[in-house]
């Protein structure tokens, strides 16, 4: 008993006796109208596809899933195959090279599914909209359910948008 008291506030056994430092997270935002929140049951498996991004959005997604913004604690996870996914996380403007794989990925996705457009390029074409390698914007291929604007979007904004889907 004495030993544990002597180890004090910063002793090695602190984690056994003190509560975690994180506070309660704020209430989740309202889901988009078209989506039925109940279907996802607080868990969202996403397959990420980069259809022509500058990699800025990828860095922010990595950050959003990292320890600081910690999207996994709200039930979001990236998976390796669209066959395992509830939805698609699209970044970038649709290029000629990626339009075929995008169609294949959409076909491989089990239905019903959600499409999340992350970053200005995916939302409306962004600054690369009229570049020579671009085939069109994402909404010409598939209409996104959730839009995350920003170039690049802030990790907190990404987490916020994903929480609107998981409802946690």
């Amino acid at each position, binding site marked *: 008993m004495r030993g544990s008291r002597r180890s004090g506030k910063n002793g090695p056994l602190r984690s056994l006796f003190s509560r975690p430092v994180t506070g309660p997270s704020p209430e989740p935002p309202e889901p988009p109208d078209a989506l039925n929140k109940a279907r996802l049951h607080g868990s969202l498996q996403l397959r990420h*596809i980069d259809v022509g991004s500058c990699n800025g959005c990828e860095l922010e997604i990595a950050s959003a899933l990292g320890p600081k913004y910690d999207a996994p604690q709200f039930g979001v996870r990236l998976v390796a*195959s*669209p*066959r395992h996914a509830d939805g698609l996380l699209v970044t970038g403007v649709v290029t000629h090279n990626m339009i*075929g*794989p*995008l169609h*294949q*990925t959409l*076909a*491989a996705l089990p*239905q019903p599914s959600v499409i999340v457009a992350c970053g200005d390029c995916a939302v409306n074409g962004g600054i690369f909209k009229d570049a020579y390698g671009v085939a069109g914007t994402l909404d010409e291929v598939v209409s996104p359910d959730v839009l995350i604007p920003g170039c690049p979007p802030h990790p907190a904004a990404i987490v916020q948008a994903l929480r609107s889907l998981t409802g946690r």
Partner: protein
Amino acid sequence: MTLLLVGLGFCLLGVLTSALPRTYRVPVTASCAALGCALAFCAAMRVLVTGDTVSFHTTLILPLNGFAMTLDPLGALFIVATALVGFASCVYCIGYVRGELQSRSAMGLFVAFILSLLAVPAASSIATLMLFWELMAVSSMLLIVVEHRHRREARDAALWYGVMTQLGAASILLGLLLLTLRGGGQTFTEIKSHADALSPIVRSSAFMLVLLGFASKAGAVPLHVWLPKAHPEAPSPVSAMMSSSMVAMGVYGIIRVGDDLLHGGTVWWWIAVVALGTLSALYGALHATTSTDIKRLLAYSTIDILGLVLIGVGAAGALRDTGHPAVAQLALMAALLLVVAHAGFKGALFLGAGAVERATGTRDLDQLGGLIHRMPVTTTIFALSACSIMAVPTLSGFSSEWLLLQGLLHGFTDASTPTLIALLVGIVALALTGGLTAVAFVKALGIGFLGQARTLGAVNATEVAPTMQIAMALLGAVSIVLGLVPGLVVPLINRAAQSGLSRSTMSPLARGTGLVLAQLRGAIQPAFLFVGAAAVLVAVWLINRRLVHRSARRVDAWGCGRDVQTARMQYTATSFGEPLQRVFADVLRPQSDVELTHVAESRYYEQSLKYQNQVSDAVEQFGYRPVIDAVLRGGKAARRIQNGSIHRYLAFGFVALLVVLVVLA
């Protein structure tokens, strides 16, 4: 007996009709041999059903010693198995034969081979047995080299087989001759009556010599090296006969000499048999998982199944003098049932492999694929037989392996410690080989027959001739009958086991369609199991059709967004076996080799990359190669004396004569 002799006579007629002109040769010869097999089947079945022993003796054929044949239930069971596969192989031949096997000598040899296989289990004197044994060895060896013009490997295989089988035959002959030391007669009845008078050392050394010869025929590790070479190189009907009948003759010999002629002997003989069986079962199953040549895979799985049979035979021998003769009989019954079941499924698998080779021109699993769409009948029968060998319930492999497991488990009650250890090891081997066999045959079936065709040969494959399909279906039906209603054949197997153990205890199994142990606990009813499983399957199918199928959406296979997907991207047999090859690298000793050539300008870019991976037989590599090398070195050294000069040879003769004279004087 007359029926069997008439059957053998028809086979002999088949040997003669192989001299007919090309157009009639194959159908007439094959029909004669098939008729011969059918008659032999009837004769053997009659012996099995009635339980009588019939014999035949004449001094006309083998002048010095006479020609003696006895058909007892033990031999009859092996004749039944042989006749089934022989009949199917003959029917198969009619559609299959093209090229070299069509030749006069090959057809004649094929029928002679069947004849010898039908006669070996009926032979009842040393001279008769060795006559047919040698006929079997020589005819099968010549049949292996039938296709030597296309395949150089066939010559090598035949040489290995010839040497091993002749050494084995010499060992068997020596062992049998030892048994005639007392008494002097060479018929089996005489040997049997004098066997107890022999000294234990003579009995043991005779059994060990005989075991050596018969075990090498049965493909027991480490005497198996000829088998994975010879079986793939022979034409497929011959492979089927070799794999399902000829190797069983080794088992027959061990039972005949050990159990019947020598009345069981001592326990350690049989523990040696169990050890051989365990080694073969594990080694064969392991190699089957890494083989990519379909016939080589089947050959290794033959070693595996024959290993299980030897475990059963060994357990029966070890338990026969303990308090539970019924358990010994159960183990022997299981081994015999496995022999018959193996004849059915392995025959069908080899014939199926032959059909695939005929249709696609290759035996390499990595070059097949998609055959289910092009050869539905062959694929169905191959799948059925593969399921049987994997011991899927309601098929023959399951019922025989279940019986074997019961025999081994019930032997625990009052076995001595060495026997107990042998039984335990046998059970573990049975369990492990079950899993490994499943891997091997999932690979053969999944890679070879499902998916997409990998080469043009597989794309252009078409279903084989109807006679070939009928032959395969016949052997496939054996798997179903022995699996669904094993209880119906159990009385016959029981007669064979009784005559093998020369006892007449009650059958350890109760009457009925299923397998129910009479005095011990344990029962299984495959027919009920099948009905239940079928009902569940139909229900699932209906529900799936009603509820799920309608809303299903068909899309292309997911290939990570790649635009072009080819059949070459499929899982291959090599990659399927690779994890196991890695795990068991110490036993399998795979040799892999990476050869990397850089471009001249920079070491960072490669010009070509070559990867080689090969699993050769480790026993051959490390056990046989050194011996062969030593023999060759000895031969080279001896050549120094033999320089080809006739003067020198005359001088040798003269000196030898002088030495003899001096010694005698």
